[in-house]
C-alpha cells in the first residue's frame, strides 16, 4: 500500500513523533510505503505533497486533536485513529486497513 498520514497529539511534543516513527517503521517492515506529516507544537513538518496524496491508497489520520488541512483528503479513503492506537499496535492497524481495502 501507499500510505499518507498525519500525526498530531494534544501537546504536540512527544506522542506525535512516536506515532509517526512507529507508522513509518511498521509500514516499511510490512512492505508498504508511508509518508507521515506531523502537526506538532513547532508547526507542520514533512508536509505531504499533492503527488503523495494523489498516489496514496489510504490516508491515516493518527490524531488526538483536530488536524489542519483535512480538505486535502476529500476524495480519499481516510482512516482516523487516536495516536495511542498507532503507538500500541502499528502493525495490527496496517494489517487491518490492508484487509479492509482488499475486501
Amino acid at each position, binding site marked *: 500500500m501507499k500510505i499518507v498520514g498525519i500525526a498530531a497529539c*494534544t*501537546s504536540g*511534543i*512527544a506522542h506525535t513523533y512516536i506515532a509517526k516513527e512507529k507508522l513509518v517503521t511498521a509500514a516499511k517492515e510490512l512492505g508498504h510505503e508511508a509518508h507521515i506529516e506531523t502537526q506538532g507544537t513547532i508547526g507542520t513538518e514533512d508536509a505531504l505533497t499533492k503527488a503523495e496524496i494523489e498516489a496514496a491508497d489510504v490516508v491515516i489520520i493518527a490524531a488526538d486533536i483536530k488536524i489542519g488541512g483535512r480538505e486535502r483528503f476529500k476524495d480519499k479513503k481516510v482512516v482516523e485513529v487516536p495516536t495511542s492506537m498507532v503507538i500500541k499496535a502499528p502493525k495490527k492497524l496496517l494489517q487491518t486497513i490492508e484487509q479492509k481495502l482488499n475486501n
Partner: protein
Amino acid sequence: MNEVLDITKVLDKKLITTDLKSTTKKGAIEELSELLETENYLTNKQQFIDDVLLREEEGVTGIGNGIAIPHGKSEGVQQTTIVIGKTDHLIEWGSLDDEPINVIIMFAVKKTDATTTHIKLLQKVAIMLADDQFLESLRKAQTKEELFELILKKNGGK
C-alpha cells in the same frame, strides 16, 4: 539532517536518577520536578507540576514496556529539557498496555521557547522511544551513566 543537533543540550546527567523513591504517579512527578528545580531548570515548580498533571488528565502517557513520558509545556519552565527517573519498584501509571511502569522520561518544555532547537531535540528523543528494543534496554539499565550512554549511542546511531 542538514542541521547538527547536539542531544546533550537537552540531556543533563544531573537530571537522571535511578533511585526514585515515590510509589505513586503524582509523587514521582513531584520528585522529578524537585530535581529539575534543584538544577535550576524551573522558575515555578508548582506551576510546572500542575501543567504536567493537567496533561495526564487528557490521556495516558504510559507508552508500554514499562515506560512513561509525562510532559508539560509550562510557564514554570526556565529551560527546555528532559529528566529521567528509574525505580526499583513498579508504579501504577496508566499505560497503553495497562501495565505499571518503572522508567519515567519527563519532558519539560518552556512555554515560550523562541528557538525550535530544543523542541527538535525532544523530538529526537521521542523518536527513539518508538523503538521497542531501545525501551527494553532503558529498562535494563542499572546506573545513570548507562542510561545517559544508551541515549547518546542511540542518537549517534540514527
